[in-house]
């Protein structure tokens, strides 16, 4: 049982903590107020776009767009964010790393706000990735725990993988439309859907959305992400992060939606996710985990409903987003309070807390009723709408209605389990001294629960201000939404009653169901989580094999690879360009040139043939002198001098080094030497042939003529090589000087033999103390 910081002797809060918590509270509050003031303007003339030019050469702007959809999400993120921040301030008070925590949370909030307010595909993606990174940091906040680190990495890898797919999809989409701005992308439905790349785009975007919103088969990271402190779970897994995928789907509806592949994929994946996650949720005894699985259920339902063209289904999804954010945030915070006050979240060791914690009980009950969809809570309206929507979709695939009823019935059971069971029954001996939580902890969930009740009693408050514009933005056409508690006696009401009956039944049978599910789970050989481990291990194994064979660190083999590739590529190039039929004029060579060539050949032959390393080095030097002579004969004295000097210094250096090495006569075996020789001959031959082929072509070099003409009048120098180096191309030369400098410093550091003996860290610490 992992628990976080607990009350008791709390150290005084420091200045840094106070400033951070002030910023963390002021930021979402300010954003909330600003967005509230936008409700009117958005309803009248949506969307509102503003921003700055970012990378004009690529047509990318840093711009933001506010319409009904982004307004709804933005308000949820900032509003719920404010109350979660308030809760976190009390929940983690005195935690040694609280400032870091606040920073991560703020970063996450910024990322989410940017994501939902983004006005183009690129901005959306950048903020999408920020939320991925911030969530990694938050999930792994208790970094001393291996399980937290594992969960964080898992979440990062899965969502970042989806992010890459999303990036590809968004780039393709922008390419087809010719613009990344939503104002243009969202109205290009016909153009996009007629394009052959439409299917790849849908697949890529859906991978992005499904990984982020924990749809099957990527659902397992979300329950694992419960390793994060409870305020994070309340925020990430209720109102925000996991809703990013939902937001993306809703945002893309006007342009990508409506096709069969889109509708059917969303319906099937959503329904499967909702049903399977609901079953998995029934197994959990950890309150937080049970809630986490119901989040997956909710996400599945949302995805299922977004796969529809009926406005009532979309309205159901949008309303459910609102409902779910309120009750899920409240319930997570309640579980956090229970954990905080009792030290456990295990269902089996809790009970009878109602008398000790009446306020928390009240909040839990209100949120639980909303979750179960009881009137007069907003959850009831949401559920009625859901059934209407399900029936609207279900004309074709009837499984949507069945999935909705099944998932909702289990949600009722789990709502009762989480919200009621810890407060009912007998108080265990160990929990006799439990007290009610301080107001700082219960104020936030109280507000969340009250919002669910208020909007349930007066649904018109949100119907025209938030839900209506959001549905309009999702559908891409004007829609009006009417929310009301009483719809009359109709099929949805019958379905509701069925749901309650099933839910209550499931609640009473829960221990039996759990035992049955556990038996099935034990019987199954593996689950997604262990599959993930296997996949990750296979990946590490492949990386290891790759590293051992390609990044082995054996210099000789690197060189061999480079030479082999060079000669093969050169040969290929020669064959393609027909460079073999060349005509070399041997007659033109004079005696001194023949002599220099003889020196080169003699030097290399001796180097190959002799056994003593020193002789080999000296003969290589002789070969270098021959090359320098050739440079000299063909009018490049500067190059010749440089070659000679470098050759000399190199000889001295290598001779001194060899002198120190242990003497050995045979370095490598016959076969190795044969392969090396083959490689050397092939590189030499192909390079030589290439040079000859190049010389067959007339040399056209306008820069050469320019330098010849301009050298004296403009740079007052007759040595063109030097003038180019120090004047015309001085910046290049300076770059080279820096390279030489860096190389010298690096080599000096690497070759230093007299390393200072390392002092163990512990000893060094003692010394300092």
């Amino acid at each position, binding site marked *: 049982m992992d628990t976080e910081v607990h009350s008791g002797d709390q150290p005084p809060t420091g200045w840094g903590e106070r400033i951070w918590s002030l910023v963390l509270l002021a930021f979402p509050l300010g954003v909330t107020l600003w967005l509230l003031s936008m409700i009117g303007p958005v309803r009248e003339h949506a969307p509102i776009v503003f921003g700055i030019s970012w990378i004009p050469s690529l047509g990318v702007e840093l711009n933001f767009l506010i319409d009904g959809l982004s307004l709804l999400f933005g308000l949820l993120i900032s509003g719920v964010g404010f109350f979660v921040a308030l809760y976190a301030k009390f929940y983690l008070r005195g935690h040694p790393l609280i400032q870091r925590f606040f920073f991560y949370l703020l970063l996450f909030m910024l990322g989410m706000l940017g994501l939902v307010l983004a006005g183009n595909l690129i901005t959306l993606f950048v903020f999408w990735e920020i939320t991925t990174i911030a969530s990694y940091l938050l999930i792994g906040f208790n970094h001393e725990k291996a399980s937290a680190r594992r969960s964080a990495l898992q979440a990062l890898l899965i969502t970042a993988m989806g992010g890459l797919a999303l990036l590809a999809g968004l780039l393709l989409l922008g390419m087809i439309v010719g613009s990344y701005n939503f104002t243009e992308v969202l109205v290009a439905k016909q153009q996009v859907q007629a394009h052959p790349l439409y299917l790849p785009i849908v697949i890529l975007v859906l991978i992005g959305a499904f990984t982020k919103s924990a749809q099957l088969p990527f659902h397992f990271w979300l329950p694992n992400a419960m390793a994060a402190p409870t305020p994070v779970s309340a925020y990430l897994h209720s109102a925000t992060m996991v809703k990013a995928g939902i937001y993306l789907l809703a945002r893309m509806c006007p342009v990508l939606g409506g096709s069969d592949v889109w509708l059917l994929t969303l319906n099937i994946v959503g329904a499967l996710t909702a049903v399977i996650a609901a079953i998995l949720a029934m197994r959990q005894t950890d309150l937080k985990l049970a809630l986490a699985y119901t989040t997956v259920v909710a996400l599945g339902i949302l995805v299922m409903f977004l796969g529809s063209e009926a406005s009532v289904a979309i309205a159901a999804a949008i309303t459910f987003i609102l409902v779910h954010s309120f009750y899920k945030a409240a319930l997570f915070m309640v579980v956090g309070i229970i954990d905080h006050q009792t030290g456990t979240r295990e269902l089996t060791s809790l009970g009878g807390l109602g008398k000790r914690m009446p306020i928390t009980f009240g909040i839990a009950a209100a949120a639980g009723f909303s979750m179960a969809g009881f009137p007069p809570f907003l959850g009831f309206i949401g559920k009625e709408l859901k059934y209407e929507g399900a029936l609207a979709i279900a004309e074709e695939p009837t499984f949507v209605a069945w999935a909705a009823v099944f998932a909702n019935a289990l949600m009722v059971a789990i709502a009762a389990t989480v919200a009621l069971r810890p407060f009912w029954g007998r108080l265990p001996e160990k929990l006799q001294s439990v007290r009610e939580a301080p107001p700082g902890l219960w104020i936030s969930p109280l507000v969340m629960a009250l919002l669910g009740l208020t909007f349930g009693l007066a649904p018109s408050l949100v119907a025209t201000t938030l839900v209506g514009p959001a549905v309009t933005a999702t559908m891409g056409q004007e829609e009006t939404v009417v929310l009301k508690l009483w719809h009359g006696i109709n099929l949805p009401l019958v379905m509701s009653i069925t749901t309650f009956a099933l839910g209550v039944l499931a609640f009473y049978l829960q221990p039996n169901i759990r035992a049955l599910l556990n038996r099935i789970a034990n019987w199954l050989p593996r689950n997604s989580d262990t599959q993930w481990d296997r996949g990750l291990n296979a990946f590490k194994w492949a990386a290891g094999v790759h590293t051992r064979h390609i990044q082995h660190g054996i210099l000789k083999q690197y060189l061999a690879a480079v030479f082999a590739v060079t000669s093969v590529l050169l040969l290929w190039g020669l064959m393609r360009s027909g460079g073999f039929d060349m005509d070399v004029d041997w007659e033109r060579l004079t005696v001194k040139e023949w002599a220099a060539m003889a020196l080169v050949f003699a030097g290399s032959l001796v180097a190959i043939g002799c056994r003593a390393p020193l002789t080999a080095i000296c003969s290589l030097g002789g070969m270098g002198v021959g090359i320098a002579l050739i440079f000299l004969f063909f009018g490049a004295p500067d190059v010749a001098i440089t070659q000679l*000097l470098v050759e000399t210094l190199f000889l*001295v250096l290598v001779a001194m080094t060899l002198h120190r090495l242990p003497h050995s006569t045979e370095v490598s075996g016959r076969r190795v030497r044969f392969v090396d020789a083959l490689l050397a001959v092939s590189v030499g031959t192909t390079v030589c042939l290439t040079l000859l082929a190049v010389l067959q072509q007339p040399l056209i070099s306008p820069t050469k003529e320019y330098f010849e003409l301009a050298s004296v009048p403009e740079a007052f120098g*007759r040595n063109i090589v*030097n003038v180019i180096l*120090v004047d015309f191309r001085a*910046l290049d030369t300076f770059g080279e000087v820096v390279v030489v400098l860096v190389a010298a410093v690096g*080599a000096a550091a690497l070759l*230093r*033999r007299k390393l200072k003996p390392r002092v163990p860290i512990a000893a060094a610490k003692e010394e300092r103390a």
Partner: protein
Amino acid sequence: MISLILQGATRLLVALILLFSVYMLMRGHNLPGGGFIAGLIASAAFVLYALAWSLREAREALRVSPVKLAAIGALISLASAVPGMLKGFPPFTGLWLFIGGGAGDKGIPISTVLLFDVGIYLAVLGAVLALFFTIEED
């Protein structure tokens, strides 16, 4: 291995080689030579000195650490970019000053280009010696 002949010859040769390197540096703009070649020649002088006497004495003769020398050289090269920029030209534009020029005689040319080459000279000298000294170090 101590060779009296080599040591004796080195005393003379090193001075000559160093002088020659400066000569190569100065003439580089019009004839074969220049900062890079001159730097290599100068480092050959110190290598010879180290072989004949000892590494320690070569280090002492150089007075500054070779890496520092190389860094100073690079900075001098960089500094030659500044005068041109101050006058509103692109960086590294060569500026010339002819001292004591008259009819038919240009005088002694002094330029930022020469400063640049001096920087390269020092940078190459420092870099080669840094490498050599570390390899030779016991």
